[in-house]
């Protein structure tokens, strides 16, 4: 790789061992992928923030870094393992909480912003079209690349940390124009409109294209922010998709011709494919809990849940997962009261996937999130039912 003078100095250890070790990791990664240079990044979203994910190995890794330097670019933190406000009331185990708080302190001492959310783009971090960033969190990466038109590869905890202390990542993959073209054309042959519809589409396509770049055609109505969030999260759960395009709608896909690679594969998505995904998440046993907010709820989702629950009473557990900044707005808007008065629990900073598994008696969990439906089965040893939003509400009020 061709490094600048400053990058050479970093690699030579002239700026300390943390920066040296970080640069070594980035150079190693760059050489694997044939990068010829580094690219400067303007911000970082760090994954590996939950103790569930980092483990003791990751905790030690971050603590060691924390004693040895400081982030040089603005860094937001992904979802953690506990509700940082109500961990005791919700019942997070004290041992886990202690480790999580140690990890939080290590990241915050490095200079990270305590966002604790998978939706940094709803908490003030909105990179622009063409801006190079280093993001972790598969659902956030795909949102940044696809909806915002920013540029990031799929960063893991160690490379996000390395990027945060050096302000660099190797210039490969989605940082380069040529790798942002679509190599799959997905013809959507049915009307899709709800978040669950988009999640089903994403789940199917992620399974099929793996790490490819799909272009969706046949989506004529502009998807909402929540639709995009649901689509991307599912694409990045069943597959490793980090970028998609929607013909005529997302920033890099004004037309099909503008964004399709010279060679590409074509797949169709219609009612048969839709029902095949739904069938995977249709357990026979009755639902006994409902969870929203994977990825974390937007203010519009908080509004929708509050409206549906206002003045009513839930007959089973309902969890609503959200970032603290969106919670603060929801509280001021009166949504938090409507949701909590109905008997639902609002979780901040965490979620069932990245948080500790708790003994809540959940057996069959209904959700409109493809990502949650996918991961929660194995992580909590439960069944999951992928329902429309209205059906999740109806089943919880029954």
């Amino acid at each position, binding site marked *: 790789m061709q490094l600048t003078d400053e990058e050479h100095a970093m690699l030579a250890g002239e700026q300390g061992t943390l920066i040296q070790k970080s640069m070594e*990791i980035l150079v*190693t*990664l760059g050489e*694997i*992928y044939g990068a010829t240079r580094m690219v400067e990044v303007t911000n970082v979203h760090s*994954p*590996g923030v*939950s103790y569930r*994910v*980092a*483990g*003791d*190995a*990751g905790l030690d*890794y971050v603590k060691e870094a924390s004693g040895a330097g400081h982030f040089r670019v603005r860094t937001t933190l992904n979802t953690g393992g506990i509700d940082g406000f109500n961990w005791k009331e919700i019942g997070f185990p004290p041992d886990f909480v202690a480790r999580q708080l140690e990890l939080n302190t290590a990241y915050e001492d490095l200079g990270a912003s305590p966002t604790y959310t998978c939706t940094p783009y709803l908490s003030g971090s909105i990179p622009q079209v063409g801006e190079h960033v280093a993001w*972790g*969190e*598969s659902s956030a*990466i795909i949102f940044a690349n696809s909806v915002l038109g920013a540029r990031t*590869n*799929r*960063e*893991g*905890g*160690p*490379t*996000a940390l390395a990027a945060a202390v050096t302000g660099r990542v190797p210039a490969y*993959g989605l940082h380069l124009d040529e790798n942002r073209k679509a190599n799959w054309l997905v013809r959507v042959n049915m009307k899709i409109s709800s978040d669950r519809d988009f999640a089903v589409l994403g789940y199917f396509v*992620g399974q099929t294209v*793996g*790490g490819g770049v799909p272009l969706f055609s046949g989506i004529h109505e502009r998807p909402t922010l929540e639709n995009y969030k649901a689509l991307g999260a599912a694409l*990045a*759960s*069943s*597959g*490793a998709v980090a970028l998609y395009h929607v013909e005529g709608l997302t920033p890099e896909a004004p037309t099909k011709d503008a964004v399709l690679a010279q060679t590409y594969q074509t797949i169709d998505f219609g009612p048969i494919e839709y029902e095949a995904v739904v069938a*995977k998440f249709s357990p026979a046993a009755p639902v006994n809990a409902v969870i929203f907010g994977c990825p974390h709820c937007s203010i519009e989702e908080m509004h929708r849940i509050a409206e549906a629950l206002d003045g009513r009473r839930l007959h089973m557990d309902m969890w609503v997962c959200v970032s603290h900044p969106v919670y603060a707005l929801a509280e001021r808007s009166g949504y938090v009261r409507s949701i909590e008065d109905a008997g639902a629990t609002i979780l901040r900073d965490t979620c069932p*996937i*990245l948080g500790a598994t708790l003994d809540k008696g959940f057996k069959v969990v209904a959700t409109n999130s493809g990502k949650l439906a*996918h*991961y929660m*089965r*194995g*992580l909590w040893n439960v069944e999951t039912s992928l329902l429309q939003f209205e059906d999740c509400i109806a089943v919880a009020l029954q």
Partner: protein
Amino acid sequence: MQDVVVLKGRKIVKGRAEGRALMTREAISFMGSTDPKTGTIIERGHEIEGECMQGKILCFPTSKGSTGGSYMLYDAVKRGVGPIGIVNIQAESIAVIGAIVSDLPMVDGIDISQIRTGDYVELNADAGVVKVYRDR
């Protein structure tokens, strides 16, 4: 008698390892497909659900899913329940990053359909070579 198959790929992370193969034709997310405390595959409906990656040369097409997977692979390796080497068709960044910090030998560009679970595998990542020994 043994059959020996030699497969040539590309070095991702240097090093050598030998042991029994655990092979799947399905992608793996080290966050969500695996339990870092036990090394067991926990993704519901995964082709190798219930198998354990501890001490195995883990052969799978590519990684997928959550970016938490890098630390979770590292954690599993540190706890001694991780694989001792990785063989991919196409290396994806999350497993690569985990393997780099874990010093876990890793190669890609390998036709993993030539490898079966239980085969004895010599992985020479430096040379990008995978030698597969199978009892006849």
